[in-house]
Protein backbone atom coordinates (compact mmCIF):
# COMPACT_ATOMS: atom_id res chain seq x y z
CA UNK A 1 0.00 0.00 0.00
CA UNK A 2 2.68 2.43 1.06
CA UNK A 3 4.79 1.19 -1.80
CA UNK A 4 2.01 1.95 -4.26
CA UNK A 5 1.48 5.41 -2.79
CA UNK A 6 5.17 6.09 -3.00
CA UNK A 7 5.33 4.93 -6.59
CA UNK A 8 2.34 7.09 -7.42
CA UNK A 9 4.00 10.09 -5.83
CA UNK A 10 7.19 9.39 -7.74
CA UNK A 11 5.38 9.23 -11.05
CA UNK A 12 3.46 12.39 -10.23
CA UNK A 13 6.61 14.28 -9.30
CA UNK A 14 8.41 13.10 -12.41
CA UNK A 15 5.51 14.20 -14.56
CA UNK A 16 5.37 17.59 -12.87
CA UNK A 17 9.10 17.98 -13.31
CA UNK A 18 8.82 17.05 -16.96
CA UNK A 19 5.97 19.49 -17.41
CA UNK A 20 7.88 22.43 -15.99
CA UNK A 21 11.02 21.52 -17.88
CA UNK A 22 8.88 21.37 -20.99
CA UNK A 23 7.54 24.83 -20.17
CA UNK A 24 11.09 26.03 -19.73
CA UNK A 25 12.18 24.60 -23.06
CA UNK A 26 9.14 25.97 -24.82
CA UNK A 27 9.78 29.34 -23.24
CA UNK A 28 13.41 29.45 -24.28
CA UNK A 29 12.47 28.47 -27.80
CA UNK A 30 9.39 30.64 -28.22
CA UNK A 31 9.91 33.85 -26.31
CA UNK A 32 11.01 36.86 -28.30
CA UNK A 33 14.17 38.11 -26.62
CA UNK A 34 17.00 37.17 -24.30
CA UNK A 35 15.44 38.75 -21.24
CA UNK A 36 12.15 36.92 -21.44
CA UNK A 37 13.96 33.70 -22.24
CA UNK A 38 16.03 34.12 -19.11
CA UNK A 39 12.77 34.13 -17.18
CA UNK A 40 11.81 30.60 -18.06
CA UNK A 41 15.37 29.40 -18.12
CA UNK A 42 15.97 30.32 -14.52
CA UNK A 43 12.57 29.55 -13.11
CA UNK A 44 10.50 26.90 -14.77
CA UNK A 45 13.66 24.90 -15.13
CA UNK A 46 14.54 25.25 -11.46
CA UNK A 47 11.08 24.12 -10.44
CA UNK A 48 11.22 21.23 -12.89
CA UNK A 49 14.52 20.19 -11.40
CA UNK A 50 13.02 20.50 -7.94
CA UNK A 51 10.14 18.16 -8.68
CA UNK A 52 12.28 15.60 -10.45
CA UNK A 53 14.85 15.58 -7.69
CA UNK A 54 12.05 15.08 -5.18
CA UNK A 55 10.99 12.02 -7.15
CA UNK A 56 14.55 10.71 -7.16
CA UNK A 57 14.85 11.30 -3.43
CA UNK A 58 11.68 9.33 -2.83
CA UNK A 59 12.87 6.52 -5.02
CA UNK A 60 16.35 5.92 -3.69
CA UNK A 61 15.47 6.23 -0.06
CA UNK A 62 17.30 7.96 2.72
CA UNK A 63 20.07 5.54 3.50
CA UNK A 64 21.49 5.52 -0.04
CA UNK A 65 21.99 9.23 -0.02
CA UNK A 66 18.76 10.92 -0.97
CA UNK A 67 19.84 13.86 1.18
CA UNK A 68 22.23 14.60 -1.62
CA UNK A 69 19.26 15.57 -3.76
CA UNK A 70 18.45 18.22 -1.17
CA UNK A 71 21.99 19.52 -1.54
CA UNK A 72 21.62 19.45 -5.31
CA UNK A 73 18.42 21.43 -5.08
CA UNK A 74 19.96 23.89 -2.67
CA UNK A 75 22.87 24.59 -4.99
CA UNK A 76 20.62 24.81 -8.03
CA UNK A 77 18.44 27.31 -6.22
CA UNK A 78 21.43 29.46 -5.43
CA UNK A 79 23.31 29.24 -8.70
CA UNK A 80 20.54 29.25 -11.30
CA UNK A 81 19.15 32.73 -10.61
CA UNK A 82 22.69 34.03 -10.37
CA UNK A 83 23.48 32.60 -13.77
CA UNK A 84 20.31 34.11 -15.24
CA UNK A 85 21.16 37.42 -13.66
CA UNK A 86 24.72 37.32 -14.96
CA UNK A 87 23.55 36.55 -18.47
CA UNK A 88 20.85 39.18 -18.60
CA UNK A 89 23.22 41.71 -17.12
CA UNK A 90 25.73 40.91 -19.83
CA UNK A 91 23.03 41.32 -22.45
CA UNK A 92 22.03 44.65 -21.00
CA UNK A 93 25.66 45.65 -20.90
CA UNK A 94 26.06 44.79 -24.53
CA UNK A 95 23.19 47.11 -25.34
CA UNK A 96 20.60 44.57 -26.42
CA UNK A 97 17.27 46.35 -26.06
CA UNK A 98 14.49 44.42 -24.38
CA UNK A 99 11.69 43.53 -26.73
CA UNK A 100 8.33 45.14 -26.00
CA UNK A 101 4.89 44.59 -27.41
CA UNK A 102 5.10 47.85 -29.31
CA UNK A 103 8.24 46.58 -30.97
CA UNK A 104 7.96 45.11 -34.41
CA UNK A 105 11.59 44.06 -34.42
CA UNK A 106 12.52 40.43 -34.02
CA UNK A 107 15.18 39.48 -31.56
CA UNK A 108 17.72 39.01 -34.31
CA UNK A 109 17.18 42.58 -35.38
CA UNK A 110 17.53 43.78 -31.82
CA UNK A 111 20.72 41.79 -31.54
CA UNK A 112 22.04 43.17 -34.82
CA UNK A 113 21.29 46.71 -33.64
CA UNK A 114 23.36 46.13 -30.56
CA UNK A 115 26.15 44.70 -32.73
CA UNK A 116 26.11 47.78 -34.93
CA UNK A 117 26.40 50.01 -31.92
CA UNK A 118 29.33 48.06 -30.58
CA UNK A 119 31.09 47.92 -33.92
CA UNK A 120 30.59 51.62 -34.41
CA UNK A 121 32.24 52.20 -31.09
CA UNK A 122 35.13 50.02 -32.10
CA UNK A 123 35.79 51.86 -35.30
CA UNK A 124 36.02 55.24 -33.73
Amino acid at each position, binding site marked *: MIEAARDGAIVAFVLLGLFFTFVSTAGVLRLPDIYSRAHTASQADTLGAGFTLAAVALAIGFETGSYKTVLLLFFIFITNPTAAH*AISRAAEEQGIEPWTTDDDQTDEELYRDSKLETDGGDNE
Partner: protein
Amino acid sequence: MSSADSSSGDSLGDATSTYIESQVIMVTVRVIAPFSLTYGLFLMFHGSGSPGGSFQGGAIIGATVLMIAFAFGIEPTRDWIQNRTLVALATGGVTTFAMIGLIPLALGGNFLEYEMYKEEFGIKAKWGLEAIEIGGVAPIVASVVVGLFFLLAAGTMQDSVSEEVSGDE
Protein backbone atom coordinates in the same frame (compact mmCIF):
# COMPACT_ATOMS: atom_id res chain seq x y z
CA MET B 1 28.41 62.25 -13.74
CA SER B 2 27.84 61.37 -17.34
CA SER B 3 30.15 64.09 -18.52
CA ALA B 4 32.90 62.77 -16.30
CA ASP B 5 32.34 59.39 -17.95
CA SER B 6 32.85 60.36 -21.48
CA SER B 7 35.74 62.71 -20.93
CA SER B 8 38.20 60.75 -18.89
CA GLY B 9 37.09 57.16 -18.81
CA ASP B 10 39.01 55.93 -21.80
CA SER B 11 42.39 54.90 -20.54
CA LEU B 12 41.14 53.67 -17.23
CA GLY B 13 37.89 52.22 -18.39
CA ASP B 14 39.30 48.76 -18.54
CA ALA B 15 40.72 48.63 -15.07
CA THR B 16 37.71 50.38 -13.64
CA SER B 17 35.09 48.10 -14.96
CA THR B 18 37.11 45.14 -13.82
CA TYR B 19 36.12 45.74 -10.30
CA ILE B 20 32.56 46.89 -10.52
CA GLU B 21 31.12 43.49 -9.98
CA SER B 22 27.58 42.56 -9.67
CA GLN B 23 27.09 41.99 -5.99
CA VAL B 24 24.74 39.13 -6.77
CA ILE B 25 27.56 37.20 -8.41
CA MET B 26 29.93 38.12 -5.63
CA VAL B 27 27.64 36.95 -2.86
CA THR B 28 26.77 33.75 -4.68
CA VAL B 29 30.44 32.93 -5.07
CA ARG B 30 30.97 33.73 -1.43
CA VAL B 31 28.34 31.18 -0.52
CA ILE B 32 29.28 28.53 -3.07
CA ALA B 33 33.07 28.67 -2.82
CA PRO B 34 33.40 26.98 0.61
CA PHE B 35 31.11 24.19 -0.52
CA SER B 36 32.91 23.55 -3.77
CA LEU B 37 36.29 23.66 -2.07
CA THR B 38 35.07 21.22 0.55
CA TYR B 39 33.71 19.00 -2.17
CA GLY B 40 36.99 19.08 -4.03
CA LEU B 41 38.81 18.09 -0.87
CA PHE B 42 36.22 15.42 -0.20
CA LEU B 43 36.79 13.86 -3.60
CA MET B 44 40.51 14.07 -3.06
CA PHE B 45 40.29 12.21 0.23
CA HIS B 46 37.74 9.70 -0.95
CA GLY B 47 39.33 8.65 -4.20
CA SER B 48 39.63 5.14 -2.87
CA GLY B 49 36.01 4.64 -1.96
CA SER B 50 33.76 6.55 -4.31
CA PRO B 51 33.79 7.75 -7.90
CA GLY B 52 36.17 10.52 -8.61
CA GLY B 53 39.48 10.90 -6.98
CA SER B 54 42.30 13.28 -6.68
CA PHE B 55 42.34 14.30 -10.32
CA GLN B 56 38.71 15.34 -10.19
CA GLY B 57 39.14 16.81 -6.75
CA GLY B 58 42.11 18.83 -7.88
CA ALA B 59 40.18 20.11 -10.87
CA ILE B 60 37.31 21.20 -8.63
CA ILE B 61 39.69 22.92 -6.24
CA GLY B 62 41.16 24.73 -9.23
CA ALA B 63 37.69 25.64 -10.46
CA THR B 64 36.92 27.12 -7.05
CA VAL B 65 39.87 29.45 -7.41
CA LEU B 66 38.68 30.36 -10.89
CA MET B 67 35.26 31.10 -9.45
CA ILE B 68 36.75 33.43 -6.86
CA ALA B 69 38.86 35.07 -9.52
CA PHE B 70 35.80 35.82 -11.59
CA ALA B 71 33.87 37.30 -8.72
CA PHE B 72 36.61 39.27 -6.99
CA GLY B 73 38.74 40.16 -9.96
CA ILE B 74 41.62 38.23 -11.42
CA GLU B 75 44.25 40.62 -10.12
CA PRO B 76 43.44 40.38 -6.40
CA THR B 77 43.20 36.62 -6.71
CA ARG B 78 46.58 36.52 -8.35
CA ASP B 79 47.93 38.56 -5.47
CA TRP B 80 46.28 36.17 -3.08
CA ILE B 81 47.65 32.98 -4.59
CA GLN B 82 51.10 33.82 -5.79
CA ASN B 83 52.75 32.10 -8.68
CA ARG B 84 55.37 30.84 -6.30
CA THR B 85 52.72 28.93 -4.36
CA LEU B 86 51.46 27.33 -7.54
CA VAL B 87 54.87 26.26 -8.73
CA ALA B 88 55.65 24.97 -5.27
CA LEU B 89 52.44 22.95 -5.21
CA ALA B 90 53.02 21.41 -8.62
CA THR B 91 56.65 20.61 -7.96
CA GLY B 92 55.85 19.35 -4.50
CA GLY B 93 53.19 17.07 -5.95
CA VAL B 94 55.56 15.48 -8.41
CA THR B 95 58.25 15.18 -5.76
CA THR B 96 55.87 13.54 -3.31
CA PHE B 97 54.77 11.07 -5.93
CA ALA B 98 58.35 10.28 -6.88
CA MET B 99 59.47 9.92 -3.28
CA ILE B 100 56.67 7.55 -2.42
CA GLY B 101 57.59 5.55 -5.47
CA LEU B 102 61.32 5.60 -4.87
CA ILE B 103 61.44 4.72 -1.18
CA PRO B 104 60.46 1.09 -1.79
CA LEU B 105 63.12 1.03 -4.49
CA ALA B 106 65.68 2.18 -1.97
CA LEU B 107 64.48 -0.51 0.40
CA GLY B 108 65.13 -3.10 -2.22
CA GLY B 109 61.66 -3.47 -3.69
CA ASN B 110 60.13 -2.20 -6.88
CA PHE B 111 58.95 1.27 -7.81
CA LEU B 112 55.71 2.02 -5.93
CA GLU B 113 55.70 -1.36 -4.20
CA TYR B 114 53.46 -0.43 -1.31
CA GLU B 115 54.01 -3.76 0.37
CA MET B 116 57.47 -2.57 1.33
CA TYR B 117 55.95 0.07 3.55
CA LYS B 118 54.05 -2.59 5.39
CA GLU B 119 57.11 -4.72 5.83
CA GLU B 120 59.42 -1.92 6.88
CA PHE B 121 57.21 0.55 8.72
CA GLY B 122 53.98 -1.31 9.28
CA ILE B 123 52.01 1.10 7.14
CA LYS B 124 49.15 -0.46 5.23
CA ALA B 125 49.43 -0.47 1.46
CA LYS B 126 46.22 1.54 1.31
CA TRP B 127 47.89 4.56 2.84
CA GLY B 128 50.63 4.62 0.26
CA LEU B 129 47.97 4.73 -2.38
CA GLU B 130 46.12 7.47 -0.54
CA ALA B 131 49.30 9.46 -0.16
CA ILE B 132 49.85 9.44 -3.90
CA GLU B 133 46.28 10.53 -4.50
CA ILE B 134 46.31 13.27 -1.89
CA GLY B 135 49.86 14.50 -1.95
CA GLY B 136 50.71 13.86 -5.56
CA VAL B 137 48.02 14.10 -8.18
CA ALA B 138 45.63 16.61 -6.61
CA PRO B 139 48.15 19.43 -6.02
CA ILE B 140 49.57 18.99 -9.51
CA VAL B 141 46.19 19.22 -11.19
CA ALA B 142 44.90 22.08 -9.06
CA SER B 143 47.99 24.19 -9.44
CA VAL B 144 48.35 23.57 -13.16
CA VAL B 145 44.72 24.53 -13.74
CA VAL B 146 45.04 27.70 -11.71
CA GLY B 147 48.43 28.55 -13.16
CA LEU B 148 47.20 28.20 -16.72
CA PHE B 149 44.22 30.34 -15.90
CA PHE B 150 46.32 33.11 -14.44
CA LEU B 151 48.75 33.08 -17.30
CA LEU B 152 46.01 33.13 -19.89
CA ALA B 153 44.29 35.92 -18.03
CA ALA B 154 47.47 37.93 -17.76
CA GLY B 155 47.21 39.65 -21.09
CA THR B 156 43.55 40.49 -20.83
CA MET B 157 44.11 43.31 -18.43
CA GLN B 158 46.86 45.64 -19.41
CA ASP B 159 48.09 46.86 -16.08
CA SER B 160 48.34 43.41 -14.63
CA VAL B 161 51.41 42.05 -16.31
CA SER B 162 54.22 44.02 -14.76
CA GLU B 163 53.08 43.11 -11.28
CA GLU B 164 52.74 39.51 -12.16
CA VAL B 165 56.27 39.40 -13.49
CA SER B 166 57.73 41.17 -10.53
CA GLY B 167 55.85 38.95 -8.14
CA ASP B 168 57.36 35.90 -9.73
CA GLU B 169 61.00 36.31 -8.87
